[in-house]
């Protein structure tokens, strides 16, 4: 897991954006977390 930090900042003030990268384990944790949140939004009826 980590963020790319390989680009030079521009003069005008931005540090070029690079998407965050997750390893497989973290990605699985996040998928499970998202499922959990979705389940909280739509709890089973009855």
């Amino acid at each position: 897991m980590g963020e790319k930090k390989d680009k030079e900042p521009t003069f005008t003030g931005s540090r070029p954006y690079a998407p965050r990268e997750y390893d497989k384990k973290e990605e699985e944790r996040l998928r499970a977390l998202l499922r959990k949140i979705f389940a909280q939004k739509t709890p089973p009826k009855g």
Partner: protein
Amino acid sequence: MNNLEKNVFGQKAENSQEELSRKLENVLQKKQEKKSSPSHEAINDLVEGLPDILKEKIIADIKRLEGYGLNEEQLRIEAEIRAREIRENYLDKRFDMPNKSFAKLETMQTIDNILEGEVVLEDLKKTARVSFDLNGLKSVNDITRSHENGDRYLKLFADILKKEELAVWLKERNIEAVATADGGDEFGAILKSDKEISSDVLNEFMDKVENELSQDERASEILDFSDEKIILAFAGISEEDLAGKTAEERRKILEEAKKEIPADYKFKAIVSSGAATLYDSFADVKISGEDDYERILGKMMGSIFDKSDENMQKAKVDFKRGLRDSNDPEKIFLAKVYSRSEGEVEARRLLEEYMVRFGKL
């Protein structure tokens, strides 16, 4: 009975004629009712110019009150109160644009919309936030000795964020955006798409905004380094210091103060920006077993704000370091303009740094 005697539902024409008149009357009556209903056209003038989410908020409230049997006048008063509250709570009057509270509300609504149907982790790349921090506001205020100029400087950036062509540029890339004034020298943009927002688009967007701003010549009119008053104020020379001096002495003082300013220097407005998608910030969301759905939405919203702010702060540090480490006289001077308002400690640190690099001043 031939086909001409039938209407589309197969009824007899002579009967349908009567029915049609009745239906038409009914429709006209309903249209009239709708026209006089405060939850529709009658409150349009009150909600004009508000972002859709806020219009819907007011209309939903008024519809609810209609159900309680309030008459037209009462509903109109309620709608006026709500519209006023909404404008006070969610709009920045200085720039006539949504504020940070609105940004939070809109972001939570967007996250809620994403969490529909078969949501997958990659869907979180469809929402991004860009944080902007306008550099040099304190310097503009201090050197011009006027907060009015500071407000003009902020408005300059607000105008760029509100430009129609920027919204069109995003729309061409399938992105809906809302720009917000987040307080002080901070601004933001919420970007939404039904597709993943690529890093190229985010970088192009930030470059576009930054370039538009740095090329806006109004900045050099707000902080005009060809103006004697500004030159003297920058050098820390007050009217009191000049009292009793001869014209020749004044001229010499001014010439001395000018020496520090690069030839034909024009002050530029520069904004530092940082972006993050919900995907980037999702790993930072800490959820406990007691959190209900609303609280989770709030935490997800908070995490994307924190992440884009963090990236913006890193950009700001890089940018200022880049100015200080530069050999370009204009950049070195801009670093001095910024540092002028960053306190004595920072000024001393810079001075020491210059002395190490260039020898005694």
